[in-house]
């Protein structure tokens, strides 16, 4: 875990291609199985996010990663076709069970394809491996944890849903940073200096503990988790069950009153 600082949040296309050539990386494609079967980045294995989410208890997750041939030392790169949000959720899960060497591909699979880069249709042979289980509770936030954090001064709660959803309802005290803000053109995350400036304007700095959440399963907020890490913020947690759980638990909510903002939307 001490080597964590040297691991980049995202990996660029050229680096991934050379790692694939060197056979020094396990690539995970988190798209649906039928999309994966049509074609994917060479050597990639398939882990549809829905499969992971059907039961994401640490024990089952460990089994899944073992079966994908990942042990503690394996270098992993994850990609998707949904601006990095699904890939982030998988990468975060891998980190949570104690894996340290995981990055996101800097762009989406569509972009990879549109650049005419290599792809294949066959699934690789995988040899199962044994990953140890060393949970990292410091990157997870639960609803109880959020309740306890209410009184703490240096905790920032970030809502990554779209602005209108935030205005309508959000967890009290949360600030709005829609997931769309995190990307730049065809990169899933802004360049580091760009991201730092944006966060700095918002008063989001390394001095605080930061918790991200989104609508339901921690995908959009998973991307935000990596965005914050990419800007060098050390203490970030993902409220993985997010707003859906918070609402189901009938916890307190906050809203922007006395304005009909929905009627400005052309949707």
């Amino acid at each position: 875990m001490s080597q964590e600082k040297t691991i980049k949040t995202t990996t660029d296309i050229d680096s991934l291609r050379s790692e694939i050539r060197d056979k020094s990386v396990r690539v995970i494609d988190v798209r649906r199985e039928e999309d994966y079967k049509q074609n994917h980045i060479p050597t990639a294995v398939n882990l549809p996010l829905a499969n992971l989410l059907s039961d994401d208890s640490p024990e089952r997750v460990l089994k899944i990663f073992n079966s994908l041939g990942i042990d503690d030392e394996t270098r992993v790169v994850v990609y998707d076709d949904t601006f990095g949000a699904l890939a982030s959720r998988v990468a975060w899960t891998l980190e949570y069970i104690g894996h340290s060497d995981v990055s996101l591909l800097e762009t989406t699979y569509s972009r990879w394809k549109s650049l005419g880069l290599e792809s294949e249709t066959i699934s690789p042979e995988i040899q199962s491996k044994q990953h140890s289980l060393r949970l990292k509770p410091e990157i997870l936030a639960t609803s109880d944890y959020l309740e306890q954090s209410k009184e703490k001064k240096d905790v920032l709660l970030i809502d990554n849903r779209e602005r209108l959803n935030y205005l309508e309802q959000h967890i009290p005290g949360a600030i709005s940073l829609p997931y769309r803000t995190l990307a730049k053109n065809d990169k899933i995350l802004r360049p580091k200096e760009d991201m730092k400036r944006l966060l700095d304007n918002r008063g989001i700095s390394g001095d605080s503990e930061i918790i991200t959440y989104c609508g339901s399963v921690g995908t959009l907020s998973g991307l935000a988790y990596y965005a914050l890490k990419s800007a060098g913020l050390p203490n970030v947690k993902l409220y993985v069950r997010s707003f859906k759980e918070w609402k189901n638990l009938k916890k307190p909510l906050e809203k922007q009153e006395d304005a009909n903002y929905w009627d400005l939307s052309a949707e």
Partner: protein
Amino acid sequence: MTVSDLKQPHSDSVRPTINWARVEEAVDFAKTVKLYRQGKYDDDSFRRYRLQHGAYGTRMTSDYAMVRIKLPAGEIYPQQLEKIAQLSEQFSIGSAHFSTRENIQLHWVVLEDVSEIFRGLAEVGLTSREACGNSVRNVMCSPLSGVCPGEEFDATPYALATAKFFLRNPMAQSLPRKFKFNFTCCEKHGMVRMVDVGLIPQIKEIDGTAQKGFKIFLGGGLGNRSFVGHQLEEFTPEEDLIYTSIAVLRIFDRLGDRKNLARNRMRYLVNDMGWDAFQNLVFKERALVRATQSVVTQLDVDFTPSEIKRPIRVTDESGNPNPDGYARWLKTNTEKQKQPGYRSAFITLEAGDITANQLSALGEIVSDYSSEGKARVGFNQNIALRYVSEDDLPRLYSRLLEVGLAKSGSLTMTAPIGCSGTTSCNLALTNSHRLAKEIQRKFLELRLDEDDDLRDSTIKISGCPNSCGQHGIATIGFFGGGGRVGKEMYPNYQMLLGGRSDGETMLGLTCTRIPAKRVIPAILKIIELFKKYKKPNDTLKEWIHRIVNEKEDSEIKSILDLRKIMDQLAVPPTKEDDPDFYSDYGSDTSYHTKTGKGECAA
């Protein structure tokens, strides 16, 4: 192969020729917001600074701003549409709003993100500087300037030059109040008599040579009290344009009311002083300006014509040559240009709103179909693609259909204007924005856009008396307020009739109050009466014009006669009978009025 910098713009899209932006203003704005949050700026100075940079306050909160992006002369280029699409997704609500003054507004922006929007805008040469506050606001020009069959010459280069001259000009940084220039193409397309300075291009034969110049109107404006502008002189030659503009601005700067914020627009000064005295003052001041300005003080008018080149499309050219709804759209959304073989196609929006995806698609569509490679934003919360080759119109329509931008009725009464109202404005009393959308949906369903008798009429709605929705120049205009039955309140509108902004500009006359939920039946009732009493070849606009001027000879002779009929619609039901009557559009709770502090006067 190395893959770097991924995004490739549309390779042959036309690029903006003027850079309105200064990226250092983004840096300064971010710094100033921080200082303000640290308490090192007082509220008033920060508000002035914020407005000067084009960030307006938002309803009931100081956490959010609205960024008003100026489009001088209404011009917008494909890459700018794409950039605004991105910015609206990143920092706003995923939709953007076209205003009535050729601005695009991003609402519900976190104040701390405003500087990021400035950065994004600077990448494509756009600014929001002096879009709010006591400055020269966006300089407008008719969306048909350059293509209008009725114009004498294209005013666009002069509008752009005027915008360039006044933007960041020290003489226009702290006026008593905002100041607006509108250029137009011709009398018919109007909008020059309800603004501080309105200009119509005009050519006059002087000593055998054709001399370009303008008809200039001063001291008009819509607001809590509206006035119609006065023509300065018969003909103002083009070389006097800058001297006249400076002279008028200097008079306003010197004599405008800096104390009474409610009546400090120039139109009040003109009204208080009397037109003759004001006119004389302008002539004197202009002589002074002409004599004292350095020869280098000139308008930088760029006469380079836009290159007109039919785009080469890589997209699929097959498909149905006459798609469903095409004839209706062609009739109600397009205008023939003075250049043979071309039309201008207007895009119908709902109260000016457009999604990020649609904006982005529009960027490509402009590149693919407009032979001038850019678009023009209009007077009515809409946007026009000009120089569309007649042969390309069916395909353009199909493309617009795919992205939900092919609604008909843009150039008819079925495209009402609605200001932002209670969706974001501090002063609003009603949800005028949603009401405009409701009217449009209903009227398109009734196919009223196809009715030639209604075509030149307009419906314009403001959420309060302050006229952002331009209700005073509508054939049928409304402004919002609260109605009361005992302790219960309901959303209500004052209805005005007979306003117009063309050569016979006049302000609408008050008819009666109509509750929000009765507005649609009320307009339909007016149409029904018109159909009953109309003369052959009559239009609704002309019929109402005769009524408000008491020149109608049928049973309904005056606005009072109309009021008697309309008042039947205004009787409030009990809350038990009709609870919906007591809530505004877009809300399911009982209506009550709630307003914050306006910033117009800041």
